């Protein structure tokens, strides 16, 4: 029997794709949403073939907030679970020189994801159940010289998710904040990441399905990140400002 649909926003990303597979493996039908959705046809057949569930494609642009209400209206069925894997990382120095780039990073990591989840949150609240999953970042826990434009947007997003969770906690709607640390994705390709702190997209995906089932609020995927981020948050600013993290 097919379980209720899961909507994956930003379905082309490695984490989005892995999450779609993880929920399909549990028997959920899948709605894949991204720009140029028809180019996801191979993913549609892939998920359907591997897991024997229905998969549909939906045109979605996170950077067009005005279209978000219509987008949700047009879904064939309101999903039970929505995962937003939209995000964009650009070279920090590029963002420093070019305000357009900085703005795009901010909008892609905060404005867009928050806008679509806000629309879905209202529908879920009205219905009285559902799970919203936002993929934020440990980079949002404290601004660092090497990545603060991205980090600041993620900080806003983390705060947004936290507030949403607080608002919906008594309404039957669960909100999951994912702070995955390093993940081996297209976004981080070519970076020299420490293997033991780096998660694979399918580890993030299965952590998300577990957080949904276990109604966990905040997940770090690799546990070490919880400790690392605790230490980073606790460091006094006059010391932190001189570090090169």
């Amino acid at each position, binding site marked *: 029997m097919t379980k209720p649909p899961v909507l994956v926003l930003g379905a*082309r990303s*490695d984490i989005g794709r892995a999450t779609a597979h993880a929920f399909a493996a549990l028997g959920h039908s899948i709605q894949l949403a991204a720009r140029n959705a028809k180019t996801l046809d*191979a993913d549609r*057949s892939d998920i359907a*073939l*591997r897991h024997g569930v229905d998969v549909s494609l939906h045109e979605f642009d996170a950077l067009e907030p005005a279209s978000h209400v219509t987008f949700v209206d047009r879904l064939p069925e309101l999903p039970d679970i929505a995962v937003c894997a939209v995000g964009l990382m650009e070279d920090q120095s590029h963002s420093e020189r070019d305000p357009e780039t900085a703005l795009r990073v901010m909008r892609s990591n905060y404005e867009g994801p928050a806008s679509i989840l806000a629309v879905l949150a209202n529908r879920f609240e009205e219905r009285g159940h559902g799970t919203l999953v936002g993929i934020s970042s440990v980079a949002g826990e404290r601004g660092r010289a090497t990545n603060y434009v991205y980090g600041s947007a993620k900080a806003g997003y983390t705060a947004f998710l936290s507030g949403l969770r607080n608002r919906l906690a008594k309404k039957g709607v669960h909100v999951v904040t994912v702070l995955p640390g390093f993940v081996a994705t*297209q976004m981080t390709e070519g970076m020299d990441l420490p293997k033991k702190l780096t998660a694979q997209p399918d580890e993030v995906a299965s952590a998300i399905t577990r957080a949904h089932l276990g109604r966990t609020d905040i997940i770090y995927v690799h546990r070490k990140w919880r400790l690392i981020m605790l230490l980073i948050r606790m460091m006094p600013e006059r010391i932190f400002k001189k570090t090169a993290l």
Partner: protein
Amino acid sequence: MMLSGWGRYPVLNTSLHAPRSLSALQDAVRSERSLIARGNGRAYGDSAINPAATLETRHLNRMLAFDPANGQLIAEAGVLLGDVIAAFLRRGWFPLVTPGTKFVTLGGAVAADVHGKNHHKDGSFRSCVDWIDVMDATGDVTRCSRAEQPALFEHTLGGMGLTGVITQAAIRLQRVESAWIRQTTHPAANLKTAMDVFEANHQATYSVAWIDCLAGGADLGRSLVMLGEHARLEDLPHDRRRMPFDMPGKTKRTVPFDFPGFALNALAVRAFNALYYRMGSRRTGQRLVDIDTYFYPLDAILEWNRIYGRKGFAQFQCVLPLDASEAGLSALLEAISEEGAGSFLAVLKRFGAQDSAFSFPMEGYTLALDFPINTRTLRLLAELDRITLDHGGRFYLAKDSHMSAKTFSASDTRITAFRAQRQDSGWQDTFASAQSRRLSL
């Protein structure tokens, strides 16, 4: 970045591309002057590394269509055989041909034209391939099959990625009734007996021998020959018949660190081999084993390649023509036994007849061994190469990391034609690996 094959030797610096879409793959192919495609990195040596550019296809791993009428699966090249099994075994389908690991991509299986324990009966991977899509240096994709563009098809199978980038393939799966194999073990006291068991069991679907390559003298070639058949529903105990595709859950183990070089010394390997033979001899006769245990015993230990330590290991696999097999295998085993160089895993297998442009298998016996990398090993490998050549044998490129161009040229008369085809088709200008350079392909 630094990259190696599964044997962790050699380690080479390369610029790695990991495209997520066909258009990204095209961009990468067009932007590089010299490159090789790489699947899941299970070739042991330097087959899938080009120091200029290496193109990883493992993200292009979507299954596109399946026809339950004839078992044809169309999929992108980066799909793993393990993915195929995960998706289709429970529906009663299994790959027609599978190598000893399921962590290979379809593209890699085509490029190396891999073989399995049923080669004597069903042939190499080629047998299950309906067509292949190959991208050329300009980014254009050509579909080839036995009927359409046959030259490209024949040279791509076993062509080690040297004909272009394999992007998709259509393969046939076989019907099975369960996830179990009826295994029969025959202990063989020496090489001659082992070969007799193979020759007497041509009708067996699967056959392979684990061979104790440290046993010498009268015990030379002491083996356990394992035959297998897909278990039918009525072969299963009653309680399993309702769920014939359920396998016992297994915990995956990972080798947690690189073993120090001395860990696998000859003494330990000798003890292991003797014990394995004794245990195996006691468990003769028929029993049911699940598909993972039967086909992929080493896959249960993730990163098992680390037991040979940081320096890595070398594989050796040759095939000898039927009439020279007994003499050749004896000479190979004597050389190994004398050297006392314990191969942890030595496998002997009877191949059936095969006639193909550049694939490894031919009718005869194939022997596969692995050794830790050290100067003694390199000397021994050179000796094994020489014995193979003397007996008219040839070598498996997916395993090779050390052979010289001279040895390789002397081993196979098809090389000249393959090289000429590469020149004529323009493949040589773009598609090359560290191995193809070493072997002057």
